[in-house]
């Protein structure tokens, strides 16, 4: 099968080209390579099926980080390179183009964002460019589908050209010559979009804008999520699904092991989708009715923010804060991704430069950031006691974030790098691209969540039947009860949390917890340990030694935070006087001297 590589600088629209080429009828899958993700897809070309690979963006073939190393390794696999170039940034993009031309692999160049060159006052002579490179140069506007046919027509292009541009200095000199010859720029006046871009960067205007964006995002996520649950998911389960399952329950005799495994225990004589804990009731209801709606709303909003190009601006705004925890502004992006799911976030942390930064970011994420699957259940269960409990949950997590972040910055040896980030122009997101990305993420969620939740429900039933939970409750119950003030049976949730946090929250429902206990358990489930899917990736990324250290931080945080809430949370709020130890501890942490082994300036 012919392999076609999409290569180019980061953020030049490769993935849009990719999704347009591979089309709707195609299933693209994510492959977890050894160091970074790339995406493969297939497209039919008359009788032949070709494989198209969306390679992570790279500025150069002399890699400066792991993600770029993988891009370079992928080169050997390609039969044809499509070099996607941002035509509004031709000069910088040509650095990679010239390096690729030396590789003796058939190549075509896609001058993407072609439609934007005109209103930016950029004129590029394609004929001349083709003469310089001796390869096909095709103007494209991938989001609008312009020029993609011309690219497909060149898929059988197999000529190899010989180029040698020498070392860095001579290559840049050559690029300068080419640019002078083929490109003319008449800079135009500032547009409204330029103005907005500047406003989002300057702290005085940028911070309020960021807060407004965050607030609106929360509102949309909540509103759309609730809407899906109330108007689609619940009616479906109650009106259509319930009679079918009730019938099945009758057939299975209304009780016994098989009945309880498949339909679950009847609660007050009827099926309770949340509490019955059968494979076909709770096992389906939690992922599809309780969590999926929020997954859809979250990834819809995230997809919009990603495609507009807003996220890097948050990086700039929070750079100062992130330096306080030994990171720089860019690492906020994996942390934001983690609110959707910790797994892709753990992968995105690879893009950070130093080992120290990876350790700090991974630990902060695994310890303090709840994924949307868990949050959907938290909103349902804890939110039912009142919205303020959700605020308490976030307040506790923010304080914990600051504490362990500052501590790690003081104690973890190694070096941290400085922010260096290209800020994309704001772009109007293409609706189809956003929906397509959303669809892929929904599929990803279903593939990940459904089997895990079903496995969890299965294990719960087995454990109950064999009496394993009773043994565990007896063994660990007193600790939970005395330190955290939660019922002994809450251990079931902590055990299920290893599999899925949403399922773990579901296990809490039948326990009849008070608001305080629900708050404690919701927070403990965020902190104590990542779910197995996240753990596997973190272990691979950090190695066993660092993962062990990270685990120690999580478990210590669990005991301290859980114990503290039990001690200081009055009936419906935190006791102000008992906040004093928190403040004292914070001052104490500030006094800790910095680890001497650190050398920051190792860029």
């Amino acid at each position, binding site marked *: 099968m012919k392999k076609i590589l999409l290569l180019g600088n980061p953020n030049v629209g490769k993935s849009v080209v990719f999704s347009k080429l591979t089309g709707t009828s195609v299933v693209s899958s994510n492959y977890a390579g050894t160091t970074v993700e790339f995406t493969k897809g297939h497209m039919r070309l008359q009788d032949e099926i070709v494989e198209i690979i969306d390679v992570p963006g790279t*500025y*150069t073939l*002399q890699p*400066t980080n792991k993600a770029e190393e993988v891009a370079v390794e992928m080169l050997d696999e390609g039969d044809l390179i499509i070099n996607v170039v941002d035509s*509004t*940034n031709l*000069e*910088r993009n040509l*650095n990679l183009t010239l390096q690729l031309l030396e590789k003796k692999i058939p190549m075509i160049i896609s001058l993407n964002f072609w439609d934007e060159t005109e209103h*930016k006052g*950029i004129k590029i002579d394609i004929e001349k460019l083709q003469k310089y490179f001796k390869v096909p140069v095709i103007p494209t506007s991938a989001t609008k589908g312009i020029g993609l046919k011309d690219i497909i027509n060149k898929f059988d292009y197999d000529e190899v050209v010989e180029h040698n541009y020498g070392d*860095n200095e001579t290559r*840049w000199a050559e690029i300068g010559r080419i640019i002078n010859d083929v490109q003319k720029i008449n800079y135009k006046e500032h547009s409204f979009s330029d103005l907005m*871009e*500047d406003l989002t*960067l*300057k*702290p005085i205007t940028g911070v309020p804008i960021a807060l407004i964006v965050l607030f609106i995002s929360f509102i949309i996520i909540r509103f759309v999520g609730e809407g899906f649950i109330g108007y689609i998911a619940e009616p479906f389960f109650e009106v259509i699904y319930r009679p079918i399952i009730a019938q099945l329950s009758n057939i299975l005799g209304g009780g016994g092991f098989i009945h309880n495994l498949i339909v679950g225990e009847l609660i007050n004589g009827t099926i309770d989708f949340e509490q019955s804990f059968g494979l076909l009731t709770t096992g389906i209801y939690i992922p599809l009715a309780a969590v999926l709606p929020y997954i859809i709303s979250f990834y819809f909003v995230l997809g919009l923010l990603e495609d507009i190009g807003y996220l*890097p601006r948050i*990086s*700039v*705004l929070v*750079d*100062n804060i992130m330096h306080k925890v030994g990171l*720089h*502004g860019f690492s906020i992006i994996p942390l934001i991704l983690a609110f959707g799911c910790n797994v892709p976030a753990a992968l995105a942390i690879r893009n950070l430069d130093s080992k120290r930064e990876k350790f700090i970011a991974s630990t902060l994420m695994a310890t303090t950031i709840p994924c949307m699957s868990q949050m959907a259940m938290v909103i349902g269960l804890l939110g039912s006691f009142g919205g303020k409990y959700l605020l308490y949950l976030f307040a506790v997590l923010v304080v914990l974030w600051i504490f362990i972040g500052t501590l790690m910055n003081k104690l973890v040896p190694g070096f941290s790098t*400085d*922010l*260096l*980030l*290209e*800020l994309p*122009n704001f772009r109007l997101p293409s609706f189809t691209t956003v929906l397509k990305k959303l669809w892929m993420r929904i599929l990803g969620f279903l593939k990940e969540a459904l089997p895990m939740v079903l496995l969890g429900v299965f294990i719960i039933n087995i454990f109950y039947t064999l009496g394993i939970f009773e043994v565990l409750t007896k063994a660990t119950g007193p600790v939970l009860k005395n330190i955290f003030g939660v019922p002994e049976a809450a251990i079931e949730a902590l055990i299920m949390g290893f599999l899925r946090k949403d399922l773990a929250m579901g296990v809490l429902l039948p326990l009849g917890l008070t608001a305080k206990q629900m708050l404690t358990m919701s927070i403990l489930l965020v902190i104590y340990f990542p779910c197995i899917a996240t753990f596997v990736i973190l272990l691979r990324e950090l190695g066993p030694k660092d993962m062990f250290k990270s685990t120690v931080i999580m478990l210590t945080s669990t005991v301290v935070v859980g114990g503290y809430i039990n001690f200081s949370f009055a009936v419906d709020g935190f006791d102000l006087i008992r906040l004093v130890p928190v403040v004292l501890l914070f001052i104490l942490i500030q006094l800790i001297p910095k680890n001497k082994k650190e050398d*920051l*300036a*190792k*860029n």
Partner: protein
Amino acid sequence: MTKLKLTEINGDKKCRVIAFEGGSNMKTKLENLGIRLGNEITIVNNSFMGGPITVLCGSTKVAIGRKMAERILVEVVK
């Protein structure tokens, strides 16, 4: 012309890059984004509150952390 650190320039001025006081890794990273010796860059945002400095290079905006920006020497063009 006087050599200044990038962090010392106030306002939206146009500057020419004249030296990097850093390792080759830093130089490569900056070059990849189009910030090369002799190139002109325009300061978009240098906040008095600290934080990264944003420069316009060609038509690309790049945010540079303060510590790195201190090691980029420039002269003001206009």
